[in-house]
């Protein structure tokens, strides 16, 4: 009986270790964060850099992932350390929103101008415009119209 109890306790402890090491939320990955974080000295994302500082930042990210930090927490720590320039994409708040909305605004404006231009061009070629010159004299045109009317 005592042997069985001891076996159960040992088994419970064996499973308790990994369970304690598991995160309460899905772990983020180095691969994901490497694309989100810039190397401050080479101005590329970490996944494209082998510089000494990039390798140190990656080591720091690995350490935080092992400690179950979320991607947001890791990014916040790196911003605190290196400034907002360490993020590959600007935050979706405050003044940085301009970086997101300006290109979209430009595309919309460009599309509107293009649409306006097309509309204007189509209007020029529509109502009130002189018929295209066929190169035929009026008499021939009239006879041609009569022939076509008979065929109808």
């Amino acid at each position, binding site marked *: 009986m005592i042997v069985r109890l001891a076996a159960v306790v040992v088994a419970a402890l064996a499973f308790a270790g990994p369970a304690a090491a598991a995160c309460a939320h899905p772990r983020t990955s180095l691969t994901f964060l490497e694309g989100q974080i810039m190397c401050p000295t080479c101005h590329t994302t970490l996944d494209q850099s082998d510089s*000494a*500082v990039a390798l*140190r930042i990656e080591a720091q990210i690995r350490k935080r992932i092992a400690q179950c930090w979320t991607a947001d927490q890791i990014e916040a720590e790196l911003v605190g*350390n290196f400034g907002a*320039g360490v993020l590959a994409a600007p935050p979706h708040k405050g003044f940085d929103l301009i970086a997101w909305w300006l290109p979209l605004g430009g595309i919309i404006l460009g599309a509107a*101008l293009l649409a306006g231009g097309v509309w204007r061009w189509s209007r020029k070629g529509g109502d009130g415009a002189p018929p295209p010159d066929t190169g035929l004299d009026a008499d021939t045109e009239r006879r041609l119209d009569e022939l076509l009317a008979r065929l109808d």
Partner: protein
Amino acid sequence: MRTLKLTGQFVALAAVVGLLALLVWRLTHQSHAPKIGGPAPAFTAKRMDGGGTVALASLRGKPIVLNFWASWCDPCKSEAPALERAFQRYRKQGVVFLGIDYHDVTGDARTFLSHHGVTYTTLLDGSGAIGDRYGLSGVPETYFIDRKGRIVGDHILGPITIAKWANAFAQGVQAALHS
């Protein structure tokens, strides 16, 4: 129709003016190393030990050795003990040593300082803003600032453990002390 045309022209003109302004701003804000004899670029930065901030202006009247370094920089490892020895030697003459930790993971930097026994004040420059003002091309680099806040001596572009820069370092400290 005329309004649409005018709007289009205005938008195109505004875009061109905006791009030109951006170009001018970029050209005028490129970082260059400060001139020897000119004023040292001002800055205020947090201390590594968490004891508040230090403004360069607050050190006016004292000769300063300004050393940019990082824990990920290999030459900085050999330079750190030499700088600490120099600090111990020159502090009696009133020379202030300031280490600027450039683009570094703060935890690594603290380990580095502890490992190399660095005792002079170290400031954080994680964003590289101070380094940019001093036109840094890499680390380590060292500047000397005299009592009037002017850059003096040579701008040292490497570890002071190299013979060439060791002489320049000694001369730079003297220039900061006596100019």
